[in-house]
C-alpha cells in the first residue's frame, strides 16, 4: 500500500486495518503523532488528512491511502503550500508562537494542539478566544497549559498577518 505523508510517497507493509498511528510511528518512525488513548478521546495522535484534523489512532491506514497526510513534522511544508509561499518556513506560525510563549510543559499533547490549531487558523485566521476554546475543546492537556495555548494561538494568528 502507498501513502503520502508530508509530500512524500511511502510504500508501507502494514495490514490495511492497522491504525495509521502505528504505521507512522513504526514504519515511518515519525515522532509527531503519538499514542495517547487509542480511542480518539485525547488528540495526541492527530494528523491532517487533506487539511482536516483526524485521529490517527482510529483511522485505518487504508482509509488514508490516496490522500495527503500531514504530521507535525510536515506543518511548515503544508503551510507553505496552502499559503503559496515560495520558501518553506522553518516553523509553522503556530509552532513559532508556541516557542515564543514557552507554552509546553511536558509537551506530549502539543502534537495534537499544534495540528488542531493549524487547521483552525487555516479556516479561521482570526479566531476570538471563544472560537479557539471551542475548536480546541477535543484536545486534552494534563499539564494544564490551556491558557498558554490560547495565548499562543492568538499570537500565531498575528504572526500570519
Amino acid at each position, binding site marked *: 500500500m502507498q501513502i503520502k505523508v508530508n509530500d512524500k510517497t511511502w510504500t508501507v507493509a502494514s495490514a490495511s486495518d492497522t491504525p495509521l498511528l502505528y504505521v507512522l510511528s513504526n514504519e515511518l518512525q515519525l515522532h509527531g503523532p503519538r499514542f495517547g488513548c*487509542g480511542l480518539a478521546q*485525547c488528540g495526541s495522535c492527530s494528523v491532517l488528512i487533506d487539511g482536516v484534523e483526524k485521529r490517527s489512532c482510529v483511522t485505518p491506514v487504508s482509509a488514508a491511502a490516496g490522500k495527503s497526510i500531514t504530521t507535525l513534522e510536515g506543518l511548515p511544508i503544508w503551510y507553505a503550500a496552502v499559503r503559496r509561499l515560495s520558501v518553506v518556513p522553518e516553523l509553522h506560525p503556530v509552532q513559532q508562537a508556541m*516557542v515564543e510563549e514557552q507554552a509546553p510543559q*511536558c509537551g506530549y499533547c502539543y502534537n495534537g494542539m499544534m495540528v488542531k490549531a493549524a487547521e483552525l487558523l487555516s479556516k479561521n485566521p482570526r479566531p476570538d478566544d471563544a472560537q*479557539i476554546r471551542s475548536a480546541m*475543546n477535543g484536545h*486534552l492537556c494534563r*499539564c494544564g497549559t*490551556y491558557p*498558554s495555548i490560547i495565548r499562543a494561538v492568538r499570537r500565531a494568528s498575528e504572526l500570519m498577518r
Partner: protein
Amino acid sequence: MSPLVRRDFLKAGGAMVIGFSLRDELIAQTRGTVAGPPDARQIDTWLAIHADNTATVYVGFAELGQGASTALLQIAADELDLDMSQIKSVRLDTNVTPNQGGTYSSASIARGGPQVRTAAAEARLALLGMAAKRLSIPVERLSVAKGVVSAGSSRVTYGELVGDRRFDVAFTGSAPVKKPSDYKVVGERVSRRDLADKIRGAHVYMQHVRVDSMLHGRVVRPRGQRAYGAGARVVSVDESSIRGVSGAKVIRRNDFLAVVADNEWDAVRAARQLAVKWEPTSALPGSDRLYERMRAANTTEEVVTERGSVGTALASAPHVVSQKARAPYQAHAPFGPNCAVADVKSDSALVMCSTQDVYATRRTLAALLKLPEKDVRVQYYEGSGTYGHSCYDDVAQAAALMSQDAGRPVRVQFMRWDEHGWDNFGPAHVGEVRAAADASGKIVAYEYHGWQHGWSGTEASAQLTGAPVGEFIAAQAMGVQGLNRLTCGGQYQIANLRLVNHKLPVTEYLKAGWLRSPLDLSFAFASEQAIDQLARLLKIDPYEFRKRNIADERWLGVLDAAAKAAHWTPNTATKRADGKLVSGRGIGLGTHLQSWGGAVADVDVNVETGRVAIKHLYGALDAGLVVNPAIVESQIRGQLVQTASRMLLEEVTFDTTGVTSVDWRSYPILRFEDCPDVTPIVVQRINERSLGAGEEVMAAAAAAIANAFFDATGVRMEQFPLTPSRVLAALKRAG
C-alpha cells in the same frame, strides 16, 4: 586524597587505567561502562569540561516537563561563569549520573540546586588554580567570562585547561559560592532547553524508543484493578483464541499475563482477543460505600502534633465550627500512558523507562529479575507529565518480565485502560475538623482527624507474579502519607492544636501512591473551610481574619500577594445573587512540605443545573529564590488548572470488583472550554533558600475554590469533586 581512596574510586568508576592523565576518548568511553552510582565525592562525577570550552553537568534529577533541567543548568552556568549556550546535561542513567534521590517532592532545585552549585564552585576554584599556574598570575587578579579566564591581555579558556580530562578533585563542598547579588543567570527568564525540539517533533519521548530485534508487548489484565492484595487471579487462558494473530505469543508468570508480537498492532489485537477467565472478587467497598468503610474501619491512631489543650479550649470558646471532607481517589493519568523497553539477558538487563528515580527502579527490577543490582542498568527517557508515581515502574517491570521470558528486547506500551485502571492512585481521604475562635477573632483551638491509607509498596506486575503486597516504606515518604502540619492549621498561630491520623490498612482498598501535592488538596478543602467558617461566624472578612491569625511573614506574603492581584475587597456576607447564576469569591492558604501558597478563586454556580464554573484563579507562591520565574509561573498556571480539574471533575470510580474509570470519558478532566483564567504570582525572595515550586499552590487553590463556592451559595461542600449532581444535592439539603 590517599592512594587507597583513589584506587577505590577508580574501581567504582570503572576506569581501566590507574593514573591521573586519562586521555579524552578514554573518559568518554569509561563513563557509563560500570554500574553507578558514581562517587558523589568527586567533582568528575558532577561535571566535565570539554576541549571546545563547553561543559556537561551530570544531574541526578529528571526532566518531567517541569523545566528543572533548564533551571539546574542556570545554577551551574552562573557558578562556572559560562553562558547557557556552553552548558548541557545528559540523560539519567544508573551507569552515568549521580544518585541525588528521586525527582519528587519538588526537590530538583531545593535539594539538587545547592549540590550542583557547590560542585560547580569547586570546579571553578580548581580551574582558577590551573589558570593561575598556566598564566603565572595570582588567582585574585583573574576574572572569568564565558569560560575564558583572563587578566589584562593574558587569557586561557577552561577548555584549554582541562579539555575532556579528569579534574581529579575531591568534592568537599567547601568552595565558596557566589552571593545572590552576583547571580547573572539565576533569576533570569531563560528559555526552556527542551522546548524547541518538543515543538518541532524532534524530541524523543519514551514512547518513541525502538531497539533492534525488539518485540511489542501488551499486558493482559482485567480493565480496572481490583483490591490491592486481592490480585487478579487467572482461572483459565485459552491460547487458541489468538491463533489467528500472526506471531503473537502468550507470556505468563502466575497471574502476570501478557502477549508479545513482532508487530505492534498484532500485539494490541492479541491482547484484546486473548480469552481469559478471571476469578471473581468483591473485596472493594465500591465508590458509593467507600467513606463509610473508611470511617468505620479499625485504624491505627497516630498523633502527628499536639500542643496546648484542644479539648478544654474547644469547650470554652465562644465560637466553634466543624467541617467535614470526603475526598476521592484521583488518578495521575499521564497524557501518554507509560511505556518501557527492556532487554533482559541471562546475566544482565537494560531497561529504558520514565521513572522518577532510576536507582530505586533499578533496585526493584533487580529483585524481580533475580539479578544483582549492579548488572541492571536503568536509563531515563521522558514520557508525558507524570505528577507522581504513575505506572512507570509497573510498565518497566512488565517489559522486563516479558523480555526475560521471550529472550528478546520487548517494548511495552500501556494502553489507556492499563494506565487509568492500574494506577497508584492518590489516596482517598476523610477529614473532620473542629476549630474555635475567641470573641476578638483569634483562633484558639484546632483539631483535625484524618482517615487515609498509605502507599502501596508492590507494583501490579510484581504483585501478579505472586510477590507479596505491602506498604511503601521509604524515608522520603515519611510525613506525606498523613496529615500535613503546614496545611492543617500550620498557617496560623494557634495555641491549642491537635492533628491525628487514623491510618487504614493498605489492602482492601485501591493501590495508591504519591500524586502531586499528596492529600494536600483534601486537607485544605477541610481545613481552610473551617477557618473560613470562623471568619463568617465572627463577621470578619476572610482575608482580614487570616491576616489577624498569621505570625509568619512568608504566609502573610503569599496571602497579600494573591489578594492584591485579585483586587480583593472586604466581604463579610455571601453574595447570593438573584437568578440561576450566583457568583462568589474565596481565599485560601496551603502548601506541600515546604514553600508557601496563597490563592483567590472566582466561581459561578448555576443553582438550577448545579454546574460550577471556575472563572479565575490567582495563585501566589513563595518558593524562596526562584531560579527561573518564567518556569515557575508556568508551574503555577499548571497547578491552578490541574486543581480546578481535580476539584470539579476528577474521581476514580469502582464497584466491589474493580475500578471502572478507565479512560477520558469515565475519568473526565478539565477541557479548554471550562478552563479558568489564571494569574500566577511569584513572590521572589532572592536571599532565601530555593524551595519546591511544582506543587505548593494547589492546596491553597483547592481551598479558595471551596470558599468561593460558599461565598456564592451559602453552602459548605463536604465532598469533592463539585459535580453538578453533588452540588444540586447539597443545595437541596440546605434548602
